[in-house]
């Protein structure tokens, strides 16, 4: 379970593929409890990310993730831009090795989660992406495993349906936010699913 430059690029390209093919799904989830632009913003931003990292030279996963972070911050906008931008920036700062092992990966995700919580001032249980990131970080701190990563990310994402939003634009809906998946948790699931796939294929 090691992350090198090539696997990092594969991870991000897979993430972009998932976002592009689920653009309308993310947007319709956001329309129900937000302002209906999550898919549009993520698709615009990650299309650019995909273009920027394709064929470029990188020395480490950290190097790739830094480029992803700055592109996401300037191209996504809304709340997702700063949150995902901060997550990728923190991951790039957490570990600068050429190859990152399982413990290193868990450490990167932990730093990213801390960055997301600090930037978004959110805690677990508020129907935000933290509800996927925190269980994932807890599980990966025990032992980093791609199958478990996918599993925890998926079940946590599905569990946001029953939560009442108290952060983000869905909070304005109060009880009406219950019964809908949180769009940021769904895109976070794609991020972890893409990561698991890239790691498995590199073995």
């Amino acid at each position: 379970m090691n992350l090198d430059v090539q696997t990092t690029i594969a991870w991000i390209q897979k993430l972009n593929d998932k976002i592009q093919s689920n653009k309308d799904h993310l947007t319709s989830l956001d329309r129900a409890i937000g302002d209906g632009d999550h898919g549009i913003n993520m698709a615009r931003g990650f299309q650019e990310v995909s273009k920027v990292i394709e064929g470029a030279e990188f020395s480490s996963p950290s190097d790739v993730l830094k480029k992803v972070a700055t592109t996401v911050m300037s191209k996504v906008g809304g709340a997702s831009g700063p949150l995902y931008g901060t997550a990728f920036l923190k991951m790039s700062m957490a570990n600068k090795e050429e190859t990152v092992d399982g413990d290193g990966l868990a450490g990167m995700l932990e730093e990213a989660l801390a960055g997301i919580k600090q930037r978004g001032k959110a805690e677990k249980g508020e129907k935000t992406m933290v509800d996927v990131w925190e269980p994932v970080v807890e599980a990966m701190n025990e032992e980093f495993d791609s199958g478990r990563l996918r599993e925890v990310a998926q079940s946590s994402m599905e569990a946001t349906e029953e939560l009442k939003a108290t952060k983000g634009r869905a909070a304005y809906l109060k009880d009406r936010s219950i019964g809908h998946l949180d769009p940021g948790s769904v895109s976070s699931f794609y991020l972890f699913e893409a990561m698991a796939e890239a790691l498995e294929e590199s073995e």
Partner: protein
Amino acid sequence: MKKLINDPNDIVTEMLDGFVAAYPNAVRRVPDTTVIVRKDSPVENKVGLISGGGSGHEPAHAGFVGHGMLDAAVAGEVFTSPTPDQVFEAIKAVDSGAGVLLVIKNYTGDVMNFEMAAELAEAEGIKVDHVVVNDDVAVEDSSFTTGRRGVAGTVFVHKIAGALAAEGASLEEVKAVAEKVIHNVKTMGMALKPCIMPASGEPGFELAEDEMEIGIGIHGEPGSETKKMASANEIVDELMEHVLPELELSGSDEVAVMVNGMGATPAMELYVLNKRVQEQLSEKGIGVHETFVGDYMTALEMAGFSITLLKVDDELKKLLDAPSKAPAFLK
């Protein structure tokens, strides 16, 4: 979807170019950005005042750029906060050394993007501070939630803080008066019809022919409650019931009133609504310093309106009355 657009992807940039072309003597666009600034920026020895947010709220925010109001407006994609690099470009364009105040509407995305821009500017030695507008009483105010949204009351923050900055006040003084306006301004809105996002072609919520949405924001997001349609007077009464208690007005107090159209509300209906607003205030013995009726903070082609009340004292009245050359707020 039927809209007067070319490519939905070009809507913001084409709108900004068209805006500058309409007021070429007053404003200019910072090249390769979505930033509109006063043509004479940066203004020597004056605190720079910047606002902005997603597009789709026209004439906000670029319409409020001009002598006596904003120095710059930063436009994001439709209903999407602008990114930190764009806000940073605006800060650099208006900073004359006297400092810069950012007027942010309270949305998760706007607050994060503007704060990140402020961090970038501080790293370059520019003095930056910010205020967060949260005038929408439809949303519960609690430290455990995102808090109230910033809506039409933001226009009064632009006007009053802009007027004080024009007098040469310090960054601290301009921030203090902006916070005073924020403390004294309350708004609530409703919609008859949702707006349609140009990129997706879909409405933000569905309403039956005999329904209305109470407590809406300015992004086509659903409101706090869907109700059966009522008369103009009944709707005004309901909104005023929420707005008035928040200001704790007494008999001798005065307010400034804004009856704001959401984009597709006929001026005729706004005046009908304003008639009832004024009757309500008069019945309660509350004086009206000045009334503004029109489209100031819109949500694309949403049909609906909001009522904003600003409690004014002598200082706020004087600054509200001061001259403004902003195209959408000429005084």
